[in-house]
C-alpha cells in the first residue's frame, strides 16, 4: 500500500511541472505586449524598452521560463500589473472565501446526494425513485443564478432567515461565517446533488444485480444492510470519481455564485483580473487551480486503492 501511495504522489510531480510550463507558454503566446500594458498607451518607445529590460522580457524565452519557475519555487508570484500589490497576497486573500464555499458545497452535495441515490436505487421504478429522478433533472437544468435569486427572494427577503449577500471570515465568529454560506452553498450544490445522486443510483442498481448481493441476502441480511454494507462499497469507485470531478468543476464554477452573493472570492478576483488584463494575477490563479485539480485527482486515485483492494497501479 505504501509503495502505491509513494508511486502516485511522485507521478504528480512531472504533471505539475508540465502545467507550469503550459501556463507560462499560454500567456507568452497570447496577443498583447505586457510592457505596453504597463506603460500605457502614451509611453514612448524608450520607456517601453526600459520596461522590457527591467522585466527581463527581452531575454530568451527558455531563460525567462527558468527565472519564472525559480521564482515560483521560492513563493514569488510577482506583483499585480494593475494594483502593484504582490500577487501571492492578493490570491491568498481571496482563497479563503472560495475554499469555504467550495468545501461547504461539496460536503452538502455528498451528504444529500448519496442517501438520495441509494433510496432511489432501492425503490427503483417506484414513486420515490421517480420523485428523486425528476428532482435531479430540475436541479441539473435550472441555471445557478436563477436558483440563487429565487432562494434569496424566499429565504432572505421574504422570510429573513439569512442575510441577502456578503461574506465574513471564520475569524469573525462561526455563526456569522456559517450563516452567510448557507444560501450560496445550497444554490451551488443543486446541480452536483443532481449529478451525484444519479451516478449513485445507477451504480448501486448495477451492483445490486451482482452474485455477491445474492450471497449477502442468503446470509439473512436485511435489504438495508445489503445496500449499505455490500452495494455501496462496490459502487464507490465511480461515485468517488464523480465527486472528484464535481469538486474540480465547482472551483471553476464559483464565479457566478460569488457574483450573485457578492462574495469576495477567487471567482471575483479572476473576473476582475480578466477585465483589467492583469496577466500576473491570471497566471497565478490558473496555476493554483491546476495544482488543485492535480491534487484532487491524486486524492481520488489514492481513494480508489483504499476502496477497492484489486486496484494497484
Amino acid at each position: 500500500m505504501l509503495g502505491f501511495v509513494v508511486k502516485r504522489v511522485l507521478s504528480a510531480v512531472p504533471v505539475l511541472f508540465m502545467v507550469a510550463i503550459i501556463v507560462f507558454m499560454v500567456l507568452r503566446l497570447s496577443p498583447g505586449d505586457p510592457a505596453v500594458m504597463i506603460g500605457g498607451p502614451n509611453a514612448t518607445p524608450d520607456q517601453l524598452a526600459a520596461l522590457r529590460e527591467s522585466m527581463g522580457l527581452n531575454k530568451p524565452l527558455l531563460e525567462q521560463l527558468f527565472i519564472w519557475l525559480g521564482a515560483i519555487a521560492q513563493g514569488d508570484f510577482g506583483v499585480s500589473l494593475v494594483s502593484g500589490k504582490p500577487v501571492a497576497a492578493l490570491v491568498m486573500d481571496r482563497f479563503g472565501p472560495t475554499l469555504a464555499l467550495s468545501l461547504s458545497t461539496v460536503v452538502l452535495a455528498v451528504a444529500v446526494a448519496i442517501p438520495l441515490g441509494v433510496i432511489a436505487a432501492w425503490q427503483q421504478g417506484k414513486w420515490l425513485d421517480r420523485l428523486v429522478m425528476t428532482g435531479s433533472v430540475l436541479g441539473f437544468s435550472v441555471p445557478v443564478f436563477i436558483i440563487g435569486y429565487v432562494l434569496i427572494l424566499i429565504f432572505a427577503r421574504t422570510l429573513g432567515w439569512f442575510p441577502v449577500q456578503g461574506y465574513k471570515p471564520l475569524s469573525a465568529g462561526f455563526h456569522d461565517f456559517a450563516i452567510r454560506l448557507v444560501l450560496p452553498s445550497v444554490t451551488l450544490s443543486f446541480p452536483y446533488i443532481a449529478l451525484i445522486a444519479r451516478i449513485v443510483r445507477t451504480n448501486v442498481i448495477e451492483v445490486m444485480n451482482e452474485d455477491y448481493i445474492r450471497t449477502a441476502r442468503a446470509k439473512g441480511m436485511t435489504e438495508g444492510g445489503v445496500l449499505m454494507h455490500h452495494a455501496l462499497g462496490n459502487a464507490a469507485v465511480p461515485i468517488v470519481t464523480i465527486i472528484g470531478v464535481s469538486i474540480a468543476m465547482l472551483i471553476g464554477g464559483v464565479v457566478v455564485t460569488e457574483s450573485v452573493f457578492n462574495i469576495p472570492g477567487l471567482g471575483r478576483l479572476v473576473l476582475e483580473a480578466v477585465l483589467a488584463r492583469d496577466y500576473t494575477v491570471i497566471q497565478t490563479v490558473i496555476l493554483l487551480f491546476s495544482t488543485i485539480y492535480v491534487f484532487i485527482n491524486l486524492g481520488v486515485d489514492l481513494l480508489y486503492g483504499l476502496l477497492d483492494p484489486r486496484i494497484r497501479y
Partner: protein
Amino acid sequence: MTTPPSQVVLSVEDVTIDTRPAGRKPIVRNISFDVREGETLCIVGESGSGKSVTSMAVMGLLPKDALQVTGGRILLDGEDVLQATPARIRELRAQKVAMVFQEPMTALNPVKTAGAQIDEVLRLHTNLSAAERRQKVLHMLERVHLPDVERIYKSYPHQLSGGQRQRIVIAMALILRPRLLLADEPTTALDVTTQKQILRLIKELQEEEKTAVVFVTHDFGVVSEIADRIVVMNRGDLVETGTCAEILSNPRQDYTRMLVASVPSLIPRCVPVPANPKVLEVVALEKRYGKKGLYRDRSVLAAQNISFTVRKGEITGIIGESGSGKSTVARCVMRLTDPSGGAIVLNGHDIVPLRNLRPMRQHVQYIFQDPYRSLNPRRTIGQSLMEGLLNYGLRETEAARKAAATLELVNLPAEVMNRYPHQFSGGQRQRIAIARAVVMEPDLLIADEAVSALDVTVQAQVLQLFEEIRARTGISILFITHDLRVAAQICNTIVVMQDGRIVEQGAARDVLAAPVQAYTRSLIDAAPAPDWDFQNFRPVSRAL
C-alpha cells in the same frame, strides 16, 4: 447408498412458480419432493428446466419483480417458508437453510476480506464477541481444509483460487450448522480435481452434521458420485424421481434415458489418422507473460517447450486444468498473443516471425467458449458470417452464397441470415459461431472449450457436428478442453498439459485408456464416475 429413514427436513409440495405478472406458462409446475436428514437429493436438468428457480424459491431468493410462487407449500422442518414474514425468512437463512452458488468467482464481495464475509453471518445471527467469532471462523476455515487459515482470513477474494473461494462460500454456508444446504451447480466452474475435492468436502461435512443437501446440477457424472436420490426436471415439469441406482441403471422415462445416455463416455472412440500432411507443427513453443525485472523476476512462464503436430483431418485435443497453459498455446497458434520463443509452422511456413498476419489469419479460425458473448449482438447472422469473407475481398453476392451454404453445413436454414444472435438458443449460437469460422474455409480450426458451456444433449449434437464438418471438409481441429469425456469422444490424438508443460501426448486410445504419467491418471480418476457406462446404463467393467 440410502440412509435409514429419518426426519424430513425439506418438503416441497405441489409448488408452481410463475412469472410476474402471471399468465404465461409457469416455469415450474406442480413439483413435489422430500429431503431427509443426512440425505443428498440431486435435482438434475438442462438449462431452462427450472432446477435453479426451485432451489431459489426454497431460499426465498426469487427475484421479487420477475418470479413468484403461485401454488403449493415449501415446508422446512414443518414450517411453510412461503407464509413466513420477511423477518422470519432472514432468521431462517444461514441458520436453518444455507446456499452455495455456482460461480465462486463472483459469489464473494470483492472489496471485503474472506474472514469478514464469514464473520458477517455470525454478527447477523449470534451475540458472540469479536474474539469468539474470530475463533469460530478460523475453526470453520480449518474444517473446510483451507491451508494457513490466518492468512486466508485476511485475504481478499481475488487473492484466492476458485477452489479456495468455493471453500469460503461453503464455510460461510455451514458455520451455523443449518439443517438444509442448497448447492446450485457448486462445482461446475471448477477443475475436475478441485471438483472432486469439493464434492468430498460437502459429503464429509454433511455426514458430521446430518445436513440435508439439495444439489442442483446438469452433470450426471457428479450426480452418480453423490446422490442418494434424484429428481429429474425438464422444462418446469418433474419427469422422474428415484434412487441414484434406479435412475442410472433403469430410467423409466424417455427423457431421463436420453439425458443419462448423453453423458459422453470416457472410452476413446477415434483412431489416429493416417500419415496425412502436417497442417500445424508447433516446435519448442514458449510464452512468458510479463518482463523479467532488474532485481526480481515477476514474469510467468505460461508455456514452455511445447511441441506437437496436427495433421490434415486430425482432431488434436489439448487437455488440462485451468492455468495449465492450454489456452495460451491456442492463442499463440492464432497469434492472438506473441510467442516468446519456438516455431509455429502452418502449412510449411513459420508464422512466428510474420509481421503481416492477415494472410495467415484466413487459414486459422477460432471458436470461443461462450456463444452468448462471441457474436456481435448488433449484427445479423448474415453480416457476422460474411464479414470475414468481405474483408478478404470476396464480392457480396458470392459471400452471401457461401454463408448460406455454410449455415446448411451446420444444420441451420439459410433464412436465419437476417436474424440477430439473441433470437437463438445457446446451442444454435454455437452452431453459428462454428459456421462463422468454417465459412472462411480455414485449414485449422481452434475450438477453445467450444462445448463446455452447453447442456449435455446439445453438447452431443455439437460434437457430432464437428465430426461431420471434419468428414466433409477434411479440416484439422485443435480442440482445447478440460473435459476428458468430451476429449474421448472426438480427439484422435491428445496432448495433456500441466503448469505450462506437456505431460504426456499420443493417440487418444493410448493416453486415455493406458496413461503412462501419474498426472494423466489422476485427471482420469478425478473425472466424475469413471466406472459408469452411461450410454448402456451399467458399470464400465461389464461393458469391456
